[in-house]
């Protein structure tokens, strides 16, 4: 594997995770529990899709075969997506979305903090830009986790259950393979075991403030590195890609 091949894969991991989580958040459009939250969640969706555009465009440039951001988003099959398993979890009820977004935003936050120093200029610039947006996403989900966890008995129990349900997909966030190994040597990627330590601190701090319990360590689902997904991704991309599949090359 060349550095260029590894870097393309790395961009797809970053870009796909933003894209899929962004698509998930856009499903809340007009379905938010209150108007302000509807707006907040679609704002977050917009940020995430914006972030994915930068990385998918860059992946196309590195590949040099003329593929655009749209080609990557609309013309790949399920087994070609490298997004985190956590990002494709269904929205469920509001507490499920809060728990998923909190765990994922904390991951992005610490990952981008570290990637700001990447030796790849584009990755570093992308991280420095995205961290400003992700900070808002992390704060939004943290505040809601506290409000729900430290709220009524019902909200407390429901969001605890949401956290427990999401937990088995958090191990996948920190899996690494030869792509990471190669890029860490080049100073482009970061060691995810280091990110995990920071993530643990943030997660524990907010969970404690929310009067919730950190879920017990359990069997972790994995698959991201090999583009193996849960049953939910296929349905998500079927909806996301519908228009381009039904009307190929349609332009807005």
């Amino acid at each position, binding site marked *: 594997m060349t550095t260029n091949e590894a870097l393309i894969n790395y961009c797809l991991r970053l870009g796909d995770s933003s894209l899929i989580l962004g698509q998930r958040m856009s499903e809340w459009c007009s379905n938010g529990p209150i108007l*302000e*939250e509807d*707006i*907040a969640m679609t*704002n*977050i969706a*917009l*940020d*995430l*899709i*914006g*972030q994915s*555009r*930068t990385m998918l465009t860059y992946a196309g440039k590195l590949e040099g075969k003329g593929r655009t951001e749209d080609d990557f988003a609309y013309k790949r099959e399920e087994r070609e997506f490298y997004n985190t398993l956590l990002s494709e979890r269904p929205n469920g009820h509001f507490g499920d979305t809060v728990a998923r977004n909190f765990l994922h935003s904390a991951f992005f*936050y610490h990952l981008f903090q570290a990637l700001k120093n990447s030796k790849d*200029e*584009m990755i*570093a*610039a*992308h991280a*420095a*830009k*995205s961290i*400003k*947006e992700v*900070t*808002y996403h*992390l*704060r*939004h989900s*943290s*505040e809601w986790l*506290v409000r729900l966890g430290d709220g009524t008995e019902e909200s407390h129990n429901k969001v605890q259950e949401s956290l427990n349900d999401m937990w088995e997909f958090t191990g996948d966030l920190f899996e690494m393979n030869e792509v990471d190994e190669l890029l860490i040597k080049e100073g482009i990627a970061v060691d995810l075991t280091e990110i995990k330590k920071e993530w643990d601190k*943030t997660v524990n*701090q*907010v969970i404690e403030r929310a009067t919730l319990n950190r879920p017990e360590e359990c069997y972790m689902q994995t698959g991201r590195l090999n583009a193996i997904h849960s049953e939910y991704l296929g349905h998500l991309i079927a909806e996301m890609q519908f228009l381009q599949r039904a009307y190929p090359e349609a332009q807005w």
Partner: protein
Amino acid sequence: MVNDIKYTKEQVWGFISEIPDPEIPVITIEELGVLRDVEVTPTKVIVTITPTYTGCPAMKMFEDDIISTLKEHGIENVEIKMVYSPAWTTDWMPQKAKDKLKAYGIAPPVDGSADKGVLFANGPKVVICPRCKSKDTILTSQFGSTACKALYSCKDCLEPFDYFKCI
């Protein structure tokens, strides 16, 4: 050559610096800090811009407006270059633009730079109501009608208003 550019960098900058923000038409791409650089070569003009937020839909409109504005001056060969570093910040906004925002009904960014509180908003920040100038205002939501704004409401005149976030 047919496409010879007969303008200087300063002239080209002057043509496009007044292009307004499509959502907040009182401020220009220059004041917003989106317009970063103009380069004039013998055959083409290269305009460098940076996005406010990565997903901001106004960016496409800025690109279209730059191209059509330059076309009016007979410049056909235009390249738009998007840069992400240094990352856009509200610190670049001059006082003149902040005053225009206020007059337009949007509270301008308050602090010198970004809100540093990561997990939880770091304490009360006084955002003055652009309508009645009251300091007794409250944050309704960190997210507003566009990516760059938060929602506030005034406890004196009871009106809701937009606040241009610091990032």
